[in-house]
């Protein structure tokens, strides 16, 4: 079920909220069970048969978590169980997400013309798999607490985050389902959550879906685009992707807040980033955290230990040597981003996307280490406009690989961006005025406050077109209620043709 569908807005959400309000009188177990059941129903609406896969995954992982907790004092059996559990999770993910694309690739490459079927990718499988692996790892390190079954089911399947995140960490969500909490509808949270949800819905329906046709058209004709057409296309895609996913995240955070559950932020104006490192601290923030905790840190630790074993120093000075930088920074960064690329999809273009970002990050780290303060280049790049523009262009190039159907298409598109198929203005002439909506949206993403700033959910508001003021800060007053209510009217007008979220494919 999509958050931007009438089924969700007019049937599912009112029923779940009503049930939550009523069952809150009967205590925690009733509320948690209701939310868990509702979440499974939410998943079942897509395909009932895959609920069994989800429940199977949850049950097996829960059993593993109990075993791991019991074996916490016996490191060797614990490691065996943990390894088996992680392998089972990754094998399931690999079967659904990577096996058949890989077989197709092999069949096509070797001209075997094998008749291979495709399996349907279960919605949200990457998200619920990684959430559970993280829990098992932390449990094995005793940084997580064991849970009762229903709480665990709810933690994994809670409908606002089930399909496309944010990727939750047990430490921030489990305590919110714990005993002693006051459950029941809190009108302040309902008001805030509804406002948050509405802003996300607007991002999706009124913005992302408007950019989509032009992005799709451009990426469908990668071999024939002029330079202007390619730039119009890639800018439309950049905005579609941002408003689609950040809109989804806002909706998820808002929905959770209606039930007084606080989710972590997932976007923080990423296109305002002044470097690639800054970009990844703002884009899909919960994925970045996951990658850092569960991939980058182990890789970096391994590299550290290896150098130490070889008797090489791991000091800051060592980072300035080629060997030191390569082992301690470049290797863990590129390896992590390579896996992040593979996580996003089966295809060489996703691997290139990941490696490209790995290289960007490595260059960014090298620049930080090696730049000479006060040099002309340093001063030029340090200017906010220059650093934001450089970062944005680097992100756009990587997004071409992220969006393209194949590596060949992506390379064609990059060729178009630099004028390989002519500079031309024919796309300008052929486009309807809506195609240039991106020209209005770009100032919004660069100069306006973001959702959490507008909703006053951060302690400091970054400088924006209104300074650091709260000129358009949310308040629970009639002006905001009527403004958001009117926006909902516009959303309803456009929502008759619902479209899926881009991140549902992951």
């Amino acid at each position, binding site marked *: 079920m999509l958050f931007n569908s*009438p*089924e969700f807005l*007019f*049937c599912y959400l009112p029923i779940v909220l009503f049930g939550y309000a009523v069952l809150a009188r009967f205590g925690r177990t009733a509320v948690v069970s209701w939310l868990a059941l509702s979440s499974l129903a939410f998943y079942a609406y897509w395909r009932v048969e895959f609920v069994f896969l989800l429940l199977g995954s949850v049950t097996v992982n829960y059993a593993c978590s109990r075993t791991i907790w019991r074996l916490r004092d016996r490191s060797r059996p614990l490691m065996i169980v943990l390894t088996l559990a992680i392998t089972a999770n990754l094998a399931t993910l690999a079967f659904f997400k990577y096996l058949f694309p890989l077989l197709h690739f092999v069949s096509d490459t070797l001209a075997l013309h094998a008749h291979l079927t495709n399996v349907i990718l279960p919605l949200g499988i990457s998200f619920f798999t990684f959430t559970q692996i993280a829990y098992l790892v932390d449990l094995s390190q005793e940084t997580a607490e064991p849970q009762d079954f229903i709480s665990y089911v709810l933690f994994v399947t809670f409908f606002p985050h089930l399909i496309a995140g944010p990727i939750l*960490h047990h430490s*921030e969500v489990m305590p919110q389902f714990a005993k002693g909490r006051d459950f029941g509808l*809190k*009108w*302040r949270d*309902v*008001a*805030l959550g*509804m*406002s948050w949800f*509405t802003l996300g819905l607007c991002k999706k329906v009124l913005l992302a879906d408007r950019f989509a046709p032009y992005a799709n058209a451009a990426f469908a004709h990668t071999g024939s685009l002029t330079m202007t057409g390619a730039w119009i296309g890639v800018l439309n895609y950049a905005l579609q992707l941002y408003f689609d996913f950040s809109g989804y995240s806002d909706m998820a955070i808002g929905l959770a807040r209606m039930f007084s559950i*606080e989710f*972590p*932020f997932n976007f*923080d104006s990423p296109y305002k980033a002044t470097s690639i*490192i800054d970009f*990844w*601290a703002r884009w899909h*923030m*919960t994925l*970045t*955290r*996951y*990658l*850092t*905790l569960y991939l*980058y*840190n182990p890789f*970096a630790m391994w590299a550290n230990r290896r150098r130490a074993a070889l008797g090489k120093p791991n000091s800051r000075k060592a980072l300035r040597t080629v060997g030191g930088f390569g082992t301690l*920074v470049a290797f*863990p*960064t590129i390896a*992590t*981003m390579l896996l992040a690329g593979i996580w996003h999809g089966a295809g060489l273009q996703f691997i290139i996307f990941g490696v490209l970002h790995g290289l960007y*990050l490595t260059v960014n*780290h090298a620049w930080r280490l090696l730049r000479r303060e006060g040099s002309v280049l340093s001063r030029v790049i340090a200017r906010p406009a220059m650093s934001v523009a450089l970062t944005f262009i680097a992100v756009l190039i990587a997004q071409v690989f992220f969006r393209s159907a194949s590596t060949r298409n992506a390379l064609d598109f990059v060729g178009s961006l630099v004028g390989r198929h002519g500079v031309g203005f024919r796309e300008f002439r052929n486009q309807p005025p809506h195609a240039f909506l991106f020209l209005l949206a770009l100032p919004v993403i660069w100069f306006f406050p973001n959702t*959490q700033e507008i909703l*006053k*959910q*951060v*302690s400091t508001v970054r400088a924006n077109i209104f300074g650091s003021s709260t000129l358009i800060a949310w*308040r*629970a*007053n*009639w002006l*905001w*209620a*009527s403004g*958001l*209510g*009117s926006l*909902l*009217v516009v959303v*309803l*007008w456009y929502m*008759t043709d619902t479209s899926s979220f881009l991140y549902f494919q992951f």
Partner: protein
Amino acid sequence: MSDGSRGAGDDSGANIEDESSIPTTSPLRFQAYVSLMLLIPALFLASSIPIVRSKSFPVESGDPFLLNPDYAFSLKHVDCDVVIYGDSTALTGLDPTAVSRATGLKTCNIAQAQSIVEILGMLALDTYLKNNAPPKYIVMQFAPETLTRGRSNFFWPEGLTLLLRKESIFQALPTFILHPVEAYHFSIWAIKAKLASLIEPPVDFASTQAIFRSRGGLLILPKPPETHCLNDIAYTQPTVDWVRMLKEKYANKGTRVLINVSPLPSCSPIAAPVEAGVRNVTDNSLSLYPVGLFCDLDRHLTLEGAERASLELGKQLLAAQKAAAVRHEPVRAFRMTERQHVK
């Protein structure tokens, strides 16, 4: 990546301000806020009710199946011998004047679009029967898919339009509450249609209206003949119990009920399964016409197609009359001899 870890999520939870970030306001204020926020879209959607109930809406809607929504309800004491009912295939495919010519029986066509049948059931037919003498024949013609019950194509606008126009708001409300998604789509459709009619003149249905008036209930869509068949149709078997129920319900006071399946184009990919599916279920067998006799969705006929279908119906009615006469003849002869014996 290493720097990326700093703020990514670790401090994001901490970013969420505590209670102090939102002014301490009474719950009542938040309730009022939520109510106002929801009231505006609710009123927007509800504005479709007066729009749909307005006199001008059937024309403004641009939906040809709403052009004569009151026709069936307006027929009083016309006392037709043959009453044609059914879905849009009957409305667009059976010409009462042609049937009359072929049979000599006074014929009326009070068929309606399928969604009206789905939502209002047999209201139009029941109303007609209440206001007129029982006919000799009720002919119900349905498209193959309409013969299958329990499908979910509910939100077709004609049915909900007529529901709002024929019933009071309180009678119609449960249908809308029980089908909120359909109600939403319907409201947006109605409001968009109204606004579109304000911006540009409504579609000209003069020729359709003229045919409807001159032929007493035949609606021909102003579309060119089709050139090829649709290929994306799924078909499921008819609901035999429903067909039987219709026959039992309306076959009284001397009325005979014929339940027919509408013709399909000969190129239709579902022709064979439909032919097999309706065998021994409907009173006719499936007719296959050239695709050029259809003008819409492989179901709605051109005027030429409607004339052909009407002549077929005429023949079917004549055959039915003949069969009934043969059946009654021995009975009459037996009664005659019985009376003679009594004498």
